[in-house]
């Protein structure tokens, strides 16, 4: 009977045939990108969550908007208001990923862009006489987008690196467990000795 059950289980699994990422942690990361926010949702084993609904929430929890990720779990959102945002993706079966985004990051970047652009223009205007080739706004945007594209794999790598469990924390955890049970053992032994005085 027991073996039959095991056999049945194996067959069901073979029929099912698909592995699943459900047993993994969900990661969501967001980062500023010009006037928009780029984000990614995926599982810690590298499978990205494609075509997933991402809710955009205000700090008080009210829903502002929602976006759907593309095939690679990637999304772009352009905020309209000047509030901090939380991005929340529910992948089902208790897998919820949340990422917070401080709107200051974005406006600072935008402002910095604006000021650097204008100061660059001023400088350019001042030195036009010397015939220094000026960078136009369009060229600057192209450079910015190239830099963003170049940085994207790096950001992805950093996110993955943050999720990596290194040997130190594993050994540390085991150490904590042994230590805790050592204390429990000590307490139990002390109680036992208190009950049974040495003969």
């Amino acid at each position, binding site marked *: 009977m*027991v*073996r039959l*059950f*095991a056999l049945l*289980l*194996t067959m*069901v*699994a073979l029929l*099912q*045939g*698909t*592995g*699943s*990422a*459900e*047993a*993994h*942690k*969900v990661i969501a990361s967001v980062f500023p990108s010009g006037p928009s926010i780029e984000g990614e949702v995926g599982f810690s*084993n590298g*499978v990205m969550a494609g075509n997933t609904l991402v809710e955009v929430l205000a700090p008080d929890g009210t829903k502002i908007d929602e976006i759907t990720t593309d095939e690679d779990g990637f999304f772009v959102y352009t905020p309209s208001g000047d509030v901090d945002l939380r991005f*929340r993706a*529910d992948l*089902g*079966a*208790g*897998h*919820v*990923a*949340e990422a917070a985004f401080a709107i200051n990051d974005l406006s600072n970047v935008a402002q910095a862009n604006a000021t650097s652009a204008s100061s660059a223009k001023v400088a350019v205007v001042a030195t036009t006489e010397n015939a220094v080739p000026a960078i136009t706004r369009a060229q600057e945007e192209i450079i910015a987008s190239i830099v963003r594209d170049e940085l994207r794999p790096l950001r992805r790598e950093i996110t993955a690196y943050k*999720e990596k*469990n290194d040997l130190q*924390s*594993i050994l*540390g*955890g*085991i150490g*904590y*467990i*042994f230590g*805790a*049970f*050592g204390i*429990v*053992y000590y307490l*139990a*032994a002390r109680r*036992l000795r208190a*009950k*049974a*005085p040495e*003969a």
Partner: protein
Amino acid sequence: MHIVDGALAPEVLIGGGGLAVAGLGLGLRKLPIDKIPATGVLSATFFVASLIHVPVGPSSVHLIMSGLAGLVLGWTAFPALFVGLLLQAIFFGFGGLTVLGVNTVNIAFPAVLAGLLFRGMVARVPPVPAAVLGGVAGAFSIALTTLFVAIALGLSGDAFIPAAKLVFFAHIPIMIVEGLVSAASVYLIAKVKPALLQPADPVEDFQMQAAVLRANQAEQTPNG
């Protein structure tokens, strides 16, 4: 397997916390002094097992090893798995602190049930059938855990039947891998140290208590 922060309704979190505290209390009361080292080792096993990824098809699953803890420890699996979950939440960010109670109940209670159901049989039969039973116990506790996860999600507003189906089918590879690893572990234990699988022996307990009583009496006689 690990439900994360923010996926459950507050009522479910509180209920799960209450049940976990009850289970912990019961487990600690039933913790005999000579099982404490085994409890610690199985707690560490559970803690590390989640990092061992087994490739299944295009993806991979990680071990849980709650069935083995239930087989060896019985009710004491509650404190062992609680400590493991707590450290997983702190060190690796699996699950979270607010859902710790629910996760403990979801994983430890099936382990205890698997222990209660299979322990007696596993202790009595020779190593090979014991290994088969151990494997079934491992798979059984995962299956029950998926049911508990689905119940927790169902109580928090998800539709129960689709959630249960999704979680159950997602965990079928884990059940199989877990069953195999549990079977191998039980086989090894049955060969090397079968005493670990014996339920607490009432005779031994009595002898221990009798020794304590005798020591007490020996101390009191000169006074009388």
